[in-house]
């Protein structure tokens, strides 16, 4: 089953913490956004493997944009 990790708020992708193929658990940070001068970690909401990363560091994402796909 595929599950998307989406941006919780608008901001810039500051750090991509995982690589494609990495194992993640619920609560593992996938990327850290930078918004409102704050670091905003965005975590996986499921256990699985990172199938696809949809963003690069420096990208702007809007709330709800897909950041990664977990399998």
């Amino acid at each position, binding site marked *: 089953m595929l599950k998307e990790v989406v941006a919780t708020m608008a901001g810039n992708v500051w750090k991509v913490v995982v690589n494609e193929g990495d194992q993640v658990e619920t609560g593992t940070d996938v990327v850290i956004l930078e*918004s409102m001068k704050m*670091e905003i970690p965005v975590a996986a909401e499921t256990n699985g493997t990172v199938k696809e990363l949809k963003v690069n560091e420096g990208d702007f994402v809007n709330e709800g944009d897909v950041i990664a796909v977990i399998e």
Partner: protein
Amino acid sequence: MEKNQVHEELRQRIEKGGAEKYHQKNSEKGKMFVRDRLKMLFDEDLDIEDAFFANCMDESLPADGVVTGIGKVNGQTVCVMANDSTVKAGSWGKRTVEKIIRIQETAMKLEVPMLYLVDSAGARITDQIEMFPNRRGAGRIFYNQVKMSGRVPQICLLFGPSAAGGAYIPAFCDIVVMVDGNASMYLGSPRMAEKVIGEKVTLEEMGGARMHCSVSGVGDVLASSEQEAIEYAQKYLTFFPENFRSKPPVQEAFDPETFEKSISELIPENQNAPFDMYELIKRLIDKDSFCEIKREFAKELITGLGRINGQAVGIIANQPRMKGGVLFHDSADKAAKFIQLCDAFNIPLVFLADIPGFMIGTKVERAGIIRHGAKMISAMSEASVPKISVIVRKAYGAGLYAMAGPAFEPDVTIALPTAQIAVMGPEAAVNAVYANKIAELPEEERPAFIKEKHEEYKENIDIYRLASEMIIDDIVQPDDLREHLNKRLQAYQSKNLTFTERKHGVYPV
């Protein structure tokens, strides 16, 4: 047949509720029979039941599909109405509505909490003339709820559907607990939505418990079972007085849970790094006392009841772990209702501020963040209970105002030694003031210049300077915070304040 025997048989028949097949259907879904719910909820079942024989001339409508009465929860008297979904799907007939209205009137006269155990398909269309448009029709239930609001606690436990007009019972309650998978609220069913507006949607998606507790915010607490919902209500009630005239009961005091990391070790030095505010809350309140409201909704702000040394408090805390703790339209809305709830029933408020400000950008402006923010600030200003503002790490911009900043008559503003209060954070401020200057500088000189200005700015907003100016009232060591709050709460117990004289404000809703 002998009279006594007739009476006894009738009583037994009514107590059983609807037909066996409906009991069966309910139990397959994990739904308890209404009378079993009541047994579980009350210390010892209902003490008094009203209009038990309502509609007893019609064999198919025992108690007319609703149980009403009075019982005790944690020794405290409460009134209750509870739909029986084995009787015509818990629909409302003429007598159902009259029973609900009467128990509400009783709750108002006795000035005791009112519980609504909802599991109903809505109006019984065959009875509409008798139960819908008239003076004592269903509309009166809602009118009464509005009148009772803030006088006595009103709690809704939603075990099944709450359809059409019926969906307003939860809406007017202080709190709505929904059972995942069974509870739902909607004005028009999926079937009706398809017919009338052509939308194809499932009940869960449109009006399910999970949706309402995490997206719409109409639900407050998502329970995994009926038992969990009932236990939540029992715990919730321990924080409340029976009505607005009294104070919340003081319970036995407990130390907080013990942890390896102390508060001072918990809070990161870097203002911009996330930390988990729940970890701080757990270290401030009595063990196991936290009773959170809207955990699944607008998670960047935490609202919940807890106890400090046995004394009930309402906690409003920014959560830097979620969305940086920035306030959004939904979190402001969540705060406004929670503050009103606590203020109505004399529960002191503790604000734990760690906030970079209100969110900016197109999305939130279109969602009306300004009016939702104004709503939160209205509720917070008007609250006349003891109001303690703690600046945990930072309070920037209007975030300071929303979290009961000094201008909003908190009884005290205290800060941890590393806290910052400013119009904006150092990075944003230096950028705002020196953007042109920075651009003019040769690239290699920029970092040093920016760093120098950061330091200057930080000095300017130094927390000891703010204390020296008496902008904040005290600076407290993190590990002394609980004891400090305890002393303040004790001292402010006799606070007696009328906010202002008028009919009522014109609220930014």
